[in-house]
């Protein structure tokens, strides 16, 4: 009841996603054993198509989330939204939740599509027969010996979801920031988005360099190369990233809330 967000445009996206799923099921069945030039070419074509579609879908989802937020709170529709007997905090919360749900769905579908494309019977048999070797190569030794594919995948998935939620928060705060530029609100929002992304990238680089043990190894590993443990590295990256993302998301959320409360100037 709290958030009667509109799923109509999103439903269209979902339909698209579903159809993509179907299509990829087909692609996934191509058997790479027969490697004639034509098959290779088709293969590459399909991969390009796949990546473009995935990118388009993701961009579309996030863009739509941002646009709906903008339309609902800051344009003519804002007159309706703001005169409802609901506080701004509730509005922001419900929209963030709705946006996050879609981001997670988007991410899940992406994972699903990738799985469908990759896991043809051929690849699956290849993987199972060489499973131990592959894991060792990635660095599943010592403390990480008990790692399996599925748990690694789950962790990766959760991490990606967190990333997507934090993207939603970032988009909403860019929209809110854009409102501060009274004459070029949309442009302001776009600029803010890039500004925030840049700041975040720089920040994450700095933090990693300071606190990431394994990353230091990369810098030094150029000379040694053998002692690099991929899994350890990834876990490190994920740990610091998670903290960073959570922290910045909270800050951005608070900022968005503040802007919405103090700077309402609907035209």
């Amino acid at each position, binding site marked *: *009841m709290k958030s*009667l967000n*509109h799923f*109509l*445009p999103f439903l269209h996206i979902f339909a698209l996603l579903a159809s993509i799923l179907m299509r990829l099921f087909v692609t996934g069945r191509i058997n790479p054993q027969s490697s004639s030039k034509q098959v290779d070419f088709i293969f590459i074509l399909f991969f390009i198509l796949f990546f473009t579609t995935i990118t388009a879908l993701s961009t579309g989802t996030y863009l739509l989330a941002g646009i709906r937020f903008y339309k*609902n709170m800051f344009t*003519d*529709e*804002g*007159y*309706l939204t*703001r*005169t*409802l*007997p*609901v*506080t701004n905090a509730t509005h922001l919360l419900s929209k963030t939740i709705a946006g996050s749900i879609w981001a997670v769905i988007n991410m899940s579908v992406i994972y699903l599509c990738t799985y469908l494309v990759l896991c043809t019977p051929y690849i699956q048999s290849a993987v199972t027969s060489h499973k131990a070797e592959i894991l060792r190569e990635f660095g599943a030794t010592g403390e990480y010996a008990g790692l399996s594919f599925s748990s690694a995948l789950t962790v990766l998935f959760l991490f990606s979801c967190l990333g997507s939620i934090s993207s939603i928060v970032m988009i909403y705060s860019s929209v809110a920031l854009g409102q501060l530029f009274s004459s070029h609100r949309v442009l302001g929002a776009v600029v803010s988005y890039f500004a925030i992304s840049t700041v975040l990238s720089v920040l994450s680089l700095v933090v990693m360099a300071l606190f990431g043990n394994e990353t230091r190894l990369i810098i030094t590993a150029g000379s040694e190369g053998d002692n690099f443990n991929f899994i350890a590295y990834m876990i490190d990256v994920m740990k610091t990233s998670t903290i960073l993302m959570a922290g910045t998301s909270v800050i951005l959320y608070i900022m968005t809330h503040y802007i919405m409360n103090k700077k*309402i*100037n*609907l035209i």
Partner: protein
Amino acid sequence: MNPILECYGLTKSYNKIYSALNNLNLSLERGQIIGLLGPNGSGKTTFIKLINDVLVPTSGEIRINGMAPGVETKKIVSYLPERTYLDETMRVKEIITYFSDFYDNFSSERAYRMLDDLQIDTNARLKTLSKGTKEKVQLILVMSRDAGLYVLDEPIGGVDPASRDYILSTILNNYNEDAAILISTHLIHDIENILDRVLFIKQGQLVLNAAVDEIRTEQGKSVDTLFREVFRC
């Protein structure tokens, strides 16, 4: 009963030099239909936005039923803005559900009855309706609420004369002694007869607050004529 709307020294400035609203003092009683009249840019819209908590005052106070603008006042204020503020992709009946979800005092039966009177297809999407029909839908939604204060911004502008008659009679039909109706409009001539009082706003200040019959008795002119005199360019 206490007045439904009170302002003390209400001011809204956008910068040091220009104030959209300057030191407004007034109080509106329940059971009245009041006209908010003034040229464009006089501060009417600013005043209306302040009532609806879409703007915050720079100084002074505004109280609706004794409360400051917020969630509680929004429950008892029903606002019809000048523009279309509905999501155009929605169907009429979806909007009715939307309103009844958010407002306890929204009567779906009343809304459906009025839509039926006007033969508006409740299954239609808003963007397929003509401008006049959209405005009528918005008015119906606003008047189907059992509010304490109705704020109507240009309810009959851009609408044909027959529809105007219907809109005015809808407003009169929904009149009740516990509520006040504030109408902001340029079409004074058409609306004079249903007003109890009029407020003239000029350059952010209240220049007149009088009953319609008072004006006609004391000055022997219609409100429309008086308006033209007061606001002569």
